[in-house]
């Protein structure tokens, strides 16, 4: 043992100095196939005020459900060129937007497939640890069976599922609410 995990501390208000060099809002670049989607929304605090100084990080599989990683136990990674990683700052109005491809389903516990989802970390001043959440896709037939969605009380599940934007099928909308009646579900990862 070399000891316990180093404690987390907040990114503070000035993280863009150190993190903006790796901002990546187009995850679709380098992807081989897959349905392109733009996901956009707002990040709101406990008073419903937009959070202008936050940063989201995305981790996701490719369209075939493979994670790009050197020691990925999955075989036949089709993910060459696709990094699966995104880092997206919110703007002065608390809005974020990124483009990606809808991931395929990846294995879950008991070998059952998980519904397509993105892993999301949220960083900002005021958060002493990152927040972890997941984003699912609307009307996906695998959602009702997804083991993580089913851990979430029914009334809160909708906070994890993006909404289709009526005027453009390639745009999805999803807001993150830190507190309040429609508080987004966050996970202990």
């Amino acid at each position, binding site marked *: 043992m070399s000891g316990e*995990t180093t404690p987390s501390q907040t990114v503070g208000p000035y993280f863009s100095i150190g*993190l903006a060099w790796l901002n990546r809002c187009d995850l679709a670049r380098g992807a081989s196939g897959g349905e392109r989607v733009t996901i956009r929304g707002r990040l709101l605090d*406990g008073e419903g005020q937009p959070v202008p100084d936050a940063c989201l990080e995305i981790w996701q599989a490719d369209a075939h459900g493979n994670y790009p990683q050197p020691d990925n136990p999955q075989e036949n990674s089709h993910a060459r060129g696709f990094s699966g990683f995104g880092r997206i700052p919110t703007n002065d109005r608390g809005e974020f937007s990124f483009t990606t491809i809808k991931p395929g389903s990846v294995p879950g516990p008991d070998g059952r497939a998980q519904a397509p989802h993105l892993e999301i970390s949220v960083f900002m001043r005021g958060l002493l640890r990152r927040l972890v959440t997941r984003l699912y896709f609307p009307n996906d037939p695998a959602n009702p069976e997804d083991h993580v969605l089913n851990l979430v009380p029914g009334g809160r599940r909708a906070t994890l599922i993006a909404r289709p934007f009526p005027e453009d099928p390639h745009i999805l909308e999803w807001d993150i609410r830190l507190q309040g009646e429609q508080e987004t579900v966050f996970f202990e990862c």
Partner: protein
Amino acid sequence: MLRYRRPAPGTQPELLHPPYVSSIKRAPTQPLIQLPHTLSETTGPSFSKEAVPPKGFDLTRQHKGEPLGERIVVSGRLMDEDGRPVAHSLVEIWQANAAGRYLHKADQHDAPLDPNFTGMGQTLTDEDGRYRFVTIRPGAYPWRNHYNAWRPRHIHFSVFGPAFATRLVTQMYFPGDPLLEFDPIYNSVPVESARKRLISMFDWATTTPEIALGFRFDIVLRGRNATPMER
């Protein structure tokens, strides 16, 4: 199935820590839901050598002239709880300059910017999990959390490790800083022995004659559990 161990109680800050005022409107109020570790959590992004600026480790050589302040070497090892080195992992840092001012539009502290200091660095750990930065000792600075609030000198660290589950952002402090005792961010970690691991050590071995003092800051990421499949 690979899983990562949960942190021991009290070794990580609570999300709501009222002395840190910004946490009050930003910490979720509903209990967090335990996320089972699947391939989505046990894999994570990796970054190639080509993706990282070769001189990103030296914050004193990013401009024409040399930055003002006390030059220091900050180095250490990235490892997991079982002492295994975390190799080829991205480490990003950012910090205030020697006067306690950040190069950021939101920083209104009445202290000078340094035209020769950005305060941003990045590097990859080597085969043994080692990293090394050359920088300037950051200054303390006031903030508006409470009356006469000052942040102790610190350097922000962002590390990835092998998986989404191991992602960590933290802050490194300096030994003997009298402001630590009053800092709500540092003191948000309930257990004292855990908190103290955020304080770097003066390091004779990396102190470079005529050049720079050395400080050592080892970073420990979550350990792995090989547990039977969940039933």
